[in-house]
């Protein structure tokens, strides 16, 4: 049985990157507990539109927790208070009748607010461009299983590859550091034999780019790991540190 709840929303509204923003209060009446958080905002937006007001801008795409487009800070928690959940997969049954919910965009110098809850995460694309890939020449497809990879290694790489690039780690980090994201990418590529040839170059250029883009410095607060919808572990940050140190000490290209 679906039930409905009444909430008060306080949403960050900001017309443009250079404009001054503020929290606006909206009543959210008769919200079905079966809705996702984004569907709830859809309902509010329909009502705002009917009233002739500007709807709340927010990012989303798949709405099934796999694309990494959605995200906002809900009551001080990136993607809301549920563990391992993207905002689109956060359901309203986790809220109680009468709750006040504060919704803010990701906050970081490297993620500029474009409008309301939409932030510019192209800084992540820049980091990927700096080394988040492997260069493979085209040619005949290699034989399957030609390169043996132990199951544990494949699993660890796969866990790191689960990162959807949503940016919640940066949003949740008290220092607005991007180390979990970079750690996940460096791990998922660097753990596999296909990623090794470029590993030393990759880690150095990705870290350099991350620094240039104005992300903060990791102080091992571990808030990223707790907020990450894909529960990417901070052991990936340790691996990033290790790869960086190794590259600086032993790679001729540093």
């Amino acid at each position, binding site marked *: 049985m679906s039930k409905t709840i009444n909430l008060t929303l306080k949403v960050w509204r900001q017309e443009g990157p250079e404009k001054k923003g503020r929290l606006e209060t909206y009543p959210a009446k008769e919200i079905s507990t079966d809705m996702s958080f984004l569907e709830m905002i859809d309902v509010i937006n329909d009502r705002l539109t009917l009233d002739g007001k500007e709807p709340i801008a927010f990012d989303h795409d798949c709405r099934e927790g796999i694309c990494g487009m959605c995200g906002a800070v809900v009551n001080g928690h990136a993607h809301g208070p549920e563990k391992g959940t993207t905002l689109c997969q956060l359901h309203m049954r986790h809220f109680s009748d009468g709750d006040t919910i504060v919704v803010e965009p990701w906050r970081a110098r490297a993620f500029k607010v474009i409008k309301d809850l939409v932030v510019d995460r192209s800084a992540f694309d820049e980091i990927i461009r700096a080394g988040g890939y492997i260069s493979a020449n085209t040619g005949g497809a290699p034989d399957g299983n030609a390169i043996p990879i132990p199951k544990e290694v494949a699993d660890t790489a796969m866990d790191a590859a689960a990162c959807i690039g949503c940016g919640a780690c940066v949003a949740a980090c008290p220092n607005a*550091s991007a180390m979990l994201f970079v750690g996940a990418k460096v791990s998922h590529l660097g753990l596999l034999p296909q990623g090794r040839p470029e590993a030393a170059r990759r880690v150095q250029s990705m870290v350099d780019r991350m620094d240039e883009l104005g992300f903060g410095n990791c102080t091992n607060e571990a808030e990223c790991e707790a907020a990450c919808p894909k529960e990417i572990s901070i052991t990936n940050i340790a691996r990033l540190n290790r790869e960086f140190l190794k590259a600086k000490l032993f790679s001729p290209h540093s």
Partner: protein
Amino acid sequence: MNWVVNALKAAIGKKLMMAVTGLAFCGFLTVHLIGNLTLYGGRDLFNSYAEHLHSLGPLVTVFELVLLALAIVHVLVGLTLFYENWRARPVRYCMNKWAGGRTIGSATMPYTGLILLAFVILHLMNFHFVDKTGRTIFEIVAGAFAQPWYVAVYVVAVIAGAIHVSHGFWSAFQTVGASHPKYMPLIRGVGILFSLIVGIGFGAIPIYVYVAVT
């Protein structure tokens, strides 16, 4: 040598400097605490410990200079990180919550660090850059800790130190990349234990001296 500068300038390089100097201080704290335990043996044992230590002559000076260099790096890099991290989020959240990763230690690192810096300066003025003619070190220590407010300042500073170490210890291992599912829980445990030892070990000394001399 350009590569060294580049490495140390990077975010991870700065972390590494904090980790290595911090771990060195953990080592120093251990030695310092063991030495200070001689206070419980009374006046003669403590004075003889101090005498033996100072009979090492130039070795002590070298040791002090190394500590000073480590401290300068730790403080300057720490302040840089504090400033850069503050700058990395120009607009703050209206609502702040901990997601579950932070601890009192991790959340207060810069502040406990600054308390420690102030304390170390005070501590050196109390017992190091002090006129030692005609008085033994035991008398100086006993004289200082006969005053209750000195005891209070020292206890507060030691608690700040213990909180600082509770995050710093495991954090240093994480930073140098020494993370392994088999050993990380142990490292975390040892970190907490070490911070308790530091807190209780150093914190009890002024209280003990106060009780013993008054």
